[in-house]
């Protein structure tokens, strides 16, 4: 993998992109419109059996909210992506949604995963960039809230060669009015770390 590759794309609501990262490269996701929600799912580039695991990520970070320093782990508990910088928090929690909206978001991922040769039941529950679900003391959980304003970013560094499915799904936020516009950029690995 070269350390000079650079990919840029803009997603709108209901669109997805699969971004390939070499070890050490960084995916920067920028909230363009403010108040966004992105589903992010890394898959091991060399072994599609190894996919993101929200449960393992929560367990191994001992946290349901993720920020700089948090690592996204796979089903086999290997590091896949590490948040090396971010201006807000993120989670991987399921939220309360009207039946139908969650199915809609899944449909989008189904197309993304089909292009990776993976079936619907093999789609992991995603990391949700810019999203925070509030958990009450009794465990009740609400519709997701976006944590981000226009210009907020998250930098995800690849801990292995990885394909990252990113889908813009503001419908997970309910009637938030979010535009769903986010920018994706691949940044080369830092000198000496690639």
């Amino acid at each position, binding site marked *: 993998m070269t350390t000079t590759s650079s990919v840029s794309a803009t997603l709108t609501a209901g669109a997805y992109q699969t971004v390939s990262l070499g070890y050490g490269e960084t995916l920067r996701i920028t909230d363009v419109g403010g108040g966004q929600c992105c589903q992010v799912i890394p898959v091991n580039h060399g072994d599609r*059996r190894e996919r993101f695991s929200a449960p393992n990520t929560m367990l191994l970070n001992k946290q349901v909210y993720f920020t700089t320093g948090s690592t996204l782990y796979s089903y086999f508990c290997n590091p896949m992506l590490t948040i090396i910088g971010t201006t807000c928090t993120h989670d991987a929690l399921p939220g309360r949604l009207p039946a139908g909206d969650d199915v809609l978001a899944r449909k989008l991922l189904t197309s993304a995963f089909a292009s990776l040769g993976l079936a619907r039941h093999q789609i992991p529950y995603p990391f949700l960039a810019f999203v925070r679900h509030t958990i009450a003391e009794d465990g009740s959980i609400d519709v997701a809230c976006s944590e981000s304003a226009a210009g907020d970013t998250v930098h995800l560094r690849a801990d292995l060669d990885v394909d990252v499915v990113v889908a813009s799904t503001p419908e997970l936020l309910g009637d938030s009015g979010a535009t769903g516009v986010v920018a994706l950029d691949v940044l080369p690995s830092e000198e000496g770390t690639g």
Partner: protein
Amino acid sequence: MTGHKADDYTHSAVVDTVIAPRDFDSFRLSAGQVLRFVDSEGQQCADLIALDPDDLTSRLSPTMSVSRNGRLYLGVGDQLVDDDGEPMLTIIADTVEHHDILCGSCSPGLNRVRHGGRGAGKRTCHVNFAEALRPYGVPAEDVPYSFNIFMNYPVSQDGSMEYATCRSSAGDHIDFRAERDLLVVVSNCPQELTPLNGFTPSSSQVIVFAAAGGNA
């Protein structure tokens, strides 16, 4: 002990079996049958997965179950649903009312990262499930996530998570009614490196009761 009991269906056991410490068992449930998990000795949690026997890609979804119920901690009256939100199991009795649905199953990977060499070769719920599903052609990486009976893994307001010993005592149980024909696997959690099972996995009991109306 708090919680609800329902006794109308408990006269007609069609299966009554002991699961040894660290072991697992599989059950074919017909719609309407009730599966009871009993913590026989106390402080024992169990991981449960459910699949549609006619379509093994349709499985219990912890995340969709949280979405549909709007709660992390499920209890009597709540339904466990599949990826499409279709009901699979309904909790109809529960003497503990404290379970986990976020954490998935203990696995060789978790043991490796958390306990290093001490975790090597230890039996885990994931290994149990992979073994149970192998005859059905389900590969280890496609083993679905579990509903974790009596598991004590609460989330604090600040998002932090820390496990603690199960709140169940000897004789505590939870009953699930099958909403359709199901393959259910129960793993009597082998975890002995964390306080979940009081560092001592113990035996449990599973009873399957006939559907109301007498159909076994």
